[in-house]
């Protein structure tokens, strides 16, 4: 049954991709890409990767689609038909690469097999010992935040870098904040009238979204979720507000100048946990030494770094959205 659903979803993915390949209208292409992400989130769900599914849904189908749309609003929505010479080389390259992959696939451990080496070398310790060593029942969280906490620091670094990069290229808040292109008054009023339903609905939704973000943030130890997902969800709440009410009101609530500090703060928070653990005689990011009891130490450490991740991600996503959409004003 699982296999059937899985295969069905995969086939849908293939159909989506081919639609995207053939489409000239980018707008639809981007929408389909969001759909593609949502489908893959479903697949992740079926394949037991709940945290990944969560993230993919929030990021792929959510935030990154919005980024795409914001960019499309600036660069236009259609692409020219590609010329024929362009198709041959890519096709050849793709076929060769694909053939290589198919060649390799014959030696791959079968899908779902229990005795694949991937499951039997490093992972057993995570599964068996992590409740006693780290604590959280969600093993993904304990691996992410503790065993491979250093990777996650790098991941926050990636997000932070993207923020700095976008900031450096487009500017945020410093450029035109407060100068919205004045629309004719009647149009403005008209637009507000048309949006009345949306406004009401979003009023109803934004608060639950933000609360849900906090829930995901603090509940990441026990169920799917964690700082990253929480940050994205929080950001999407704010983005929703900005979409409905306009960027300027949103920027009044979250002034970009101040918001620009937060990615750094979150990042620092994360790294400082590591520094504190170094000062207390442990290795970098060794939460066990934070307090007297190692298990408690792990717990506190994970909470704090997840908070750092959450702050950074939320602030970065909101900032990037502001930066991108400001350009279209």
């Amino acid at each position, binding site marked *: 049954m699982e296999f059937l659903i899985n295969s069905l979803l995969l086939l849908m993915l293939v159909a989506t991709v081919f639609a995207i390949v053939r489409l000239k209208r980018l707008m639809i292409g981007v929408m389909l890409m969001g759909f593609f992400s949502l489908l893959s989130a479903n697949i992740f769900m079926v394949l037991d990767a709940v945290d990944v599914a969560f993230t993919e849904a929030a990021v792929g189908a959510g935030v990154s689609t919005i980024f795409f749309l914001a960019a499309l609003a600036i660069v236009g929505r259609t692409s020219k038909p590609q010329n024929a010479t362009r198709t041959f080389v890519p096709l050849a390259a793709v076929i060769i690469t694909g053939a290589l992959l198919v*060649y390799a696939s014959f030696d791959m451990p079968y899908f779902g097999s229990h005795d694949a080496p991937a499951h039997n070398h490093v992972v057993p310790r995570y599964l068996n010992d992590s409740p006693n060593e780290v604590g959280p029942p969600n093993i993904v969280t304990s691996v992410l935040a*503790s065993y491979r906490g250093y990777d996650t620091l790098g991941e926050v670094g990636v997000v932070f870098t993207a923020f700095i990069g976008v*900031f450096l290229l487009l500017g945020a808040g410093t450029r035109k904040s407060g100068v919205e292109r004045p629309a004719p008054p009647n149009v403005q009023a008209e637009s507000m009238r048309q949006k009345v339903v949306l406004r009401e609905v979003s009023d109803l939704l934004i608060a639950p979204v933000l609360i849900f973000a906090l829930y995901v943030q603090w509940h990441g130890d026990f169920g799917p979720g964690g700082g990253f997902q929480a940050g994205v969800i929080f950001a999407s709440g704010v983005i929703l507000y900005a979409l409905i009410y306009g960027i300027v009101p949103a920027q009044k609530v979250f002034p970009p100048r101040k918001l620009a500090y937060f990615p750094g703060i979150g990042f620092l928070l994360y790294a400082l946990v590591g520094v504190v653990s170094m000062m207390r005689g442990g290795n970098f990011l060794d*939460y066990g030494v934070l307090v007297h009891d190692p298990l408690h130490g792990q717990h506190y450490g994970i909470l704090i770094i997840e908070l750092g991740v959450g702050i950074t991600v939320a602030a970065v996503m909101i900032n990037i959205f502001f930066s991108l959409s400001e350009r279209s004003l």
Partner: protein
Amino acid sequence: MIEQLPAIQLLLTLLAAPICSMLRNGDHAWRLATAATWLSTVVAIMLLIQVWDGGVISYQMGGWPPPWGIEVRIDELNALVLLLVTLFGSLVITALRESLRGVMRHQRQSLYYTTFLLCFAALIGITITADAFNVFVFLEVSSLSTYALIARGRDRRALTASFRYLIMGTIGATFILIAIGFLYMVTGTLNMQDLSERLPAHWDNRVIQASLAFFTVGIALKVAVFPLHYWLPNAYTYAPKATTAFLAATATKVSLYVMIRFLFDVYGIEFAFEKMQLSTILVPLSIAGILIASLVAIFQNDAKRLLAWSSVAQLSYMVLGLALLNASGITAAISHMFNHAMMKAGLFLALAAMIYRVNSSKLHDLAGIGRTMPLTTGAFAVMGVGLIGVPMTAGFVSKWYLISGTLDKGWLPLAALLIVSSLMAVVYIGKIIDVAYFKPAPPQHADVREAPLSMLIPCWIFALLTIYFGLDTRITAGLAGRVAQSYLGVS
């Protein structure tokens, strides 16, 4: 304290980056950035001293033993790369302040330094880690910051160059990710040490073979191995002045380090080169790269682009050295990695100083600059001579080893080709020097003054280092030779 050094090495710049982003004042940001990078240079030197006698430093991130946690591992090879990244990076950052003045607003400046620091930290991260996936993560941090840095160039073509690099770089990184995934699929571990122990049992596994193929293509994109160098010339040409120096010195070199680490350590020589015959692909490609890129460089009339093409050629030297697979060749590759980083950074920095004054890197705008900016041009000439490979400069040492490597293999024609390529280097460097010294300055550049001290001093440090490492090669060729011995001795 001393056992925490590997973490401190990374943290200095990694922590400085967010703080730097919060500073409104560009000068303060610069001070912070230079302090952090120079301190990290000191740490790198301390680490190098620690591993000098063949010792290996292992540091467990989060206190988890490998392969469960992420290990940081410093041996002779990456201690050398660390020194490369930190020392040359610091020198460039020191010169950066003057280069940015007047071009960028204060707030932007601190962001720029932040990006620099992130790139710097990520390169350190790539260098010290012993975890295959961690390499990918930090590779992405460094790549993203690189894209942003390049896109800040003045010409609009900087944007396209950056975008092209982004696309190719991301494909490359994803290929590497696939390769790492395949490795994990078969071995169940991500730790490099562990991987190298577990891989020999799976040599016949097609997944591992495909993994090698994907890794090679992916990293070749990052290293800019011919013919995947497509992104490099434009990226270097249109990146902001001093930034090019930083990128040329560090980014491709660290990618090359990753290549060495994976091919020689993780996959192992026997698998990568003997079973999969990687050399038969790499040698012709790198020879073609050397000759074609040198030839293209000769016909450039923009000094920056000329040097960029020269970089493609020089990177091919390193790849060739690796593919030769003998002691001299590997020594050549590793020491040339260091030497070329130094010389190219210096050359681009000197060029940046010239551009700072004349606002162009076109050859005809650089005419007569040897008279108006004698000190800068002098430094440029010294490093140019080094790049050619004239004895008593650093470039000579590595080229010598490279040619010895080809001769050891008995490939006389190849040695001759390498000498021909050196001749080409004479021509393209000579072209710049000829213009600088023996052509009259155009009237609009008659009142050009010498570059400011803060740029001039780093330039000359690079120039003097070029000579120093041409005479005392214990750090470069000595270490590289030992690394080569250890690789070849094991197999």
